[in-house]
């Protein structure tokens, strides 16, 4: 956990006062809606179909129990008693009143959270691995660098009016859980031959209308140069990124149009002129940020405590444990993923009561810490393995022990036409229907790891391009039509999915997905060949045949 000091607190409070004044000027008519729009977006406030939507940042996915309780309070006091966790470590509230927003922000500021730059054409919430700091084999905790970047990008005087939004993600593990290759800048922490910490810098990834996987612009940038290198990239983008067409304004288009070599040359030229300037990070400065992260003092505990041995006789517990419990760097501890994907529920939603209860469980079992992952699930990062049976019982009572993590019903979905003013089609009802179809955990387990991603429009907030199965809702002649892709992935082997054929109607989507899954079960070489590997081996053709033969 990073703890805010007086300096951080002052800034957040100043931002709240600033926004309060902006809202006042809007309500009094001093600001036009056009002028206000950008200001509210810079504070995470969208105007949606039914109301204002308010997006709060959870930087690098780390929350304290106190912060989670405060989010529950905002859900209860200013919204309709629930919140929606997004694919970028944010939480959204869908029914906020504009006049009450400054108060909601002030309540959040008291616990050190904010909504700065969660939308608008600026640098967005810096995201990272939700297992940062606890994953075995990690190079070092990427949140130190995420926090340095968070501070650096907050209210940046040069980059607050970029051509388009700009997203950073950081990972420090071999297995990328932060989807860095679909970000504007992706950072992979690693060490050079001299054992110095630095980053492979990737640039120009992104989904939306024109998806691209990020390309490596520099294989190693030393930690001390991180900010100057990033500033060089952003300066080139700010000046040369396209502003004539919103769909061509992301950095991915600039990188694509210039080519990565030419873009890299521009950045290098800029960087050489400033790399030894004020942005150079002294070890002392990095150490100061590091020192304000709190780490639990773990006890020396056995890997296989008696409690766990006993509980293993309960098949329900075992189903949950084998699915939702992951190895921890400290012996005797585990990382527990809390699925926010109950059968028939909207993916990523949590009620205020659930948030409060999870905060209590975090206090009791996880040193008061909670994590949020881009898969729209939560995690308790430091659970003693002997506590797993008790934790499971408590989660089960709350409806939060669905053992479907990484399985077919662990669906990533955007809010879609039920909430979003950009959407062309519904996402949530498709997800709900699919979770009902695959509600049987034995069958889901038999299928194995399979990620379904659903977006309700081309903007791709549900990351459909990188779903093992991607579902994109579009509108055709006044009807919702869904295009299905397969073979996408968002991890270190990131790839865009391939369209299997013509779009299908709303009512047919679940049947088509069942056909694809049945085809996979028949085609897989071995029971442990994952869906994504079968698609890689065979291509889309056999799946296409299966789906369209009878349609």
């Amino acid at each position, binding site marked *: 956990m990073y703890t805010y000091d007086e*300096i*951080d607190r002052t800034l957040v409070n100043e931002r709240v006062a*600033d926004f309060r004044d902006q809202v006042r000027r809007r309500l009094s008519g001093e600001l036009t809606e056009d002028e206000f729009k950008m200001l509210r977006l810079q504070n995470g406030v969208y105007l949606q179909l039914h109301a204002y939507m308010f997006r709060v940042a959870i930087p690098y996915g780390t929350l304290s129990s106190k912060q989670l309780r405060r989010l529950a309070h905002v859900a209860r006091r200013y919204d309709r008693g629930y919140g929606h966790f997004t694919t970028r470590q944010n939480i959204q509230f869908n029914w906020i009143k504009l006049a009450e927003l400054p108060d909601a922000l002030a309540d959040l500021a008291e616990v050190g959270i904010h909504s700065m730059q969660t939308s608008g054409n600026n640098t967005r919430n810096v995201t990272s691995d939700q297992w940062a700091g606890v994953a075995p084999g990690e190079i070092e905790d990427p949140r130190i660098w995420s926090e340095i970047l968070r*501070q650096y990008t*907050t*209210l940046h005087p040069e980059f607050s*009016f970029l051509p388009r939004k700009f997203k950073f993600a950081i990972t420090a593990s071999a297995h990328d859980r932060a989807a860095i290759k679909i970000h504007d800048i992706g950072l992979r922490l690693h060490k050079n031959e001299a054992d110095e910490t630095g980053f492979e810098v990737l640039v120009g990834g992104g989904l939306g209308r024109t998806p691209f996987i990020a390309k490596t612009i520099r294989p190693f940038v030393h930690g001390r140069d991180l900010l100057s290198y990033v500033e060089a990239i952003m300066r080139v983008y700010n000046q040369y990124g396209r502003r004539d067409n919103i769909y061509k304004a992301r950095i991915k288009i600039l990188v694509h149009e210039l080519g990565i070599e030419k873009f890299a040359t521009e950045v290098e030229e800029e960087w050489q002129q400033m790399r030894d300037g*004020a942005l150079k990070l002294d070890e002392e400065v990095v150490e100061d940020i590091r020192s304000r992260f709190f780490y639990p003092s773990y006890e020396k505990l056995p890997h296989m405590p008696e409690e766990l041995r006993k509980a293993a006789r309960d098949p329900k517990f075992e189903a949950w444990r084998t699915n939702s419990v992951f190895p921890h760097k400290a012996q005797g501890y585990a990382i527990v993923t809390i699925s926010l994907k109950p059968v028939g529920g909207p993916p990523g939603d949590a009620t205020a009561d659930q948030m409060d209860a999870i905060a209590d469980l975090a206090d009791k079992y996880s040193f008061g810490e909670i994590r949020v992952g881009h898969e729209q699930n939560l995690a308790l990062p430091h659970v003693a393995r002997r506590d797993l049976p008790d934790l499971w019982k408590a989660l089960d009572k709350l409806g939060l022990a669905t053992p479907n993590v990484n399985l077919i019903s662990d669906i990533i979905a955007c809010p879609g036409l039920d909430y979003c003013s950009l959407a062309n089609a519904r996402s949530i009802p498709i997800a709900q229907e699919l979770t009902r179809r695959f509600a049987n955990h034995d069958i889901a387990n038999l299928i194995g790891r399979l990620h379904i991603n659903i977006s309700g429009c081309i903007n791709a907030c549900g990351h459909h391009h990188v779903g093992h199965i991607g579902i994109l809702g579009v509108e055709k002649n006044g009807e919702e039509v869904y295009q299905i892709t397969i073979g996408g992935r968002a991890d270190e082997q990131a790839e865009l999915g391939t369209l299997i054929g013509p779009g299908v109607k709303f009512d047919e989507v679940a049947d088509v997905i069942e056909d694809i899954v049945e085809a996979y079960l028949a085609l897989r070489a071995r029971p442990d060949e994952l869906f994504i590997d079968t698609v890689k081996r065979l291509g889309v053709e056999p799946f296409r045949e299966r789906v369209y033969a009878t349609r």
Partner: protein
Amino acid sequence: MPLVKGGKITDDAFVHVADGAELPAGGSVLVSAARFLENPEALFARSGKVGVTWPNNRDVDDVVPYLDRLGAVALVFPTFRDGRAYSQARLLRERYLYRGELRATGQVLRDQFVFMLRAGFDAFEVKKPADAEAFAQTVRRYSVFYQPTGDGRLTALHRRMQLRHSESAGL
């Protein structure tokens, strides 16, 4: 459109001269980049200062040779959403060490003042009179800054270092 300079509303010493319009006999003038580059020497030969309005899609490299003789450089915000001039401003101030008047023009609104000051602007052609009047109060909104720019303000990172050192020195 009121001009804010030195933190308050002042008279504009520069006459904006449109392309093709005749230059006044004396006094300071502000001309477009195109007109300026046609014959800079003729402009500098006049009495009075020369200012140039530099478009946000042209590299500032072309104005750099003249910086020490220019009385003002005006950078343009065609809309407040277009932030290219922030980069130009920082380059002029921090890389090319331009010390003359750096003016923000175009859709300059209250909520950009702090960003503009930090990027190096010191003169503002403010769109709305009420925003110009609120200048002094608006720029005091923030006391914490995370990024180092050429404006010399201490960043949060360095303030922390100072605090830490004064604590460890027992002060």
